[in-house]
């Protein structure tokens, strides 16, 4: 049965070799049931091309274009919101860093040093490890470092998340 089905399909698709075609035609002449099945298959072939096509609703093009415009404007707003968040984090990080450096310079060298900031910084680098240890021993300093780390991690999370989302969206098709 399956062999006959296969033969019928291959006949319809013009895939039979000359030898197979001659043999199949002989079979058709002697088998009325097979002939009727072939006719039924030919009927499917002809009629399937003429079946009803469902047309898209009226005004669908306008709806789609409006949806695209809306999506684009929302995406633009989202971008601005993300940029604003990044800007706030950057300002925060810079402010805390600036405060930390200035407080360090003041606490370690006092206000009597009247050299430029860079001179203070180079002097600071000359103070060996014990100075850094002293610096790290201060609980306030640790608090500031923790805050900066947290802010950096949060910023990093936002950046990675937004990149991953964009990549997923572009690869989804």
């Amino acid at each position, binding site marked *: 049965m399956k062999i006959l089905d296969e033969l019928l399909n291959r006949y319809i698709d013009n895939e039979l070799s000359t030898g197979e075609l001659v043999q199949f035609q002989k079979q058709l002449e002697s088998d009325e049931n097979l002939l009727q099945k072939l006719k*039924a298959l030919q009927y499917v072939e002809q*009629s399937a*091309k003429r079946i009803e096509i469902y047309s*898209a609703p009226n005004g669908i093009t306008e709806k789609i274009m409006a949806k695209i415009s809306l999506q684009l404007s929302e995406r633009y707003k989202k971008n601005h919101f993300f940029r604003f968040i990044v800007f706030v984090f950057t300002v925060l990080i810079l402010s805390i860093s600036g405060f930390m450096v200035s407080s360090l310079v003041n606490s370690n060298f006092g206000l009597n040093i009247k050299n430029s900031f860079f001179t203070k910084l180079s002097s600071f680098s000359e103070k060996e490890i014990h100075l850094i240890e002293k610096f790290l021993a201060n609980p306030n300093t640790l608090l500031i470092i923790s805050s900066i780390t947290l802010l950096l991690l949060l910023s990093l999370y936002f950046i990675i998340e937004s990149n991953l989302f964009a990549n997923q*969206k572009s690869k989804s098709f």
Partner: protein
Amino acid sequence: MRKLCDNDIIESIQKGNRDDFALLVDKYKDKAFNLLRRMLRNEMDAEEVLQDSFLKAFMSMNNFRHESKFSTWFYRIVYNTGLSFLQSKRKKTELKLDSLEDHNYLNYEDGKILAVEENSIKYLSLIIDKLPIRNALVIILYYIDDLKLSEISEILDISLVNAKVLLHRSRNILRDLIFKHNYQKELL
């Protein structure tokens, strides 16, 4: 006047003329809607998914690399969006009906359709709607949209051999029903 082909339109959209996307919508909306209507078996769902499919296609337009025809690439989006919709609606029964082994179900539907059919073409159209989704789609894509089996295999994400087997099985079940009701006698 030269008729714009898909690639001309896509190039224009990629250059920033996003309103030209309406030309692609006009060209493919009926074929895509027909496919979705057959797939989701509901007009409102088909319209919703059609809008989503075009939106996805627009948003991914810059990723279209001309490796396949636009129609194939777009049909793939339509098919995948339709599948996601079915999964989200938990229409698992429809997804499960991926084999033609369920003869009792089809015979029951056949009886119902036979009671209301106006002519044999209408009968065929209604019975195609009752076939498992992929069997119905292969018939639509092959006969109505005139796609090659290689394109159909790409859209349905199956091998060429499987696409051919799917077409043969779908044709055979339709043939058996036509044969059962003697419609082949109407053949000229």
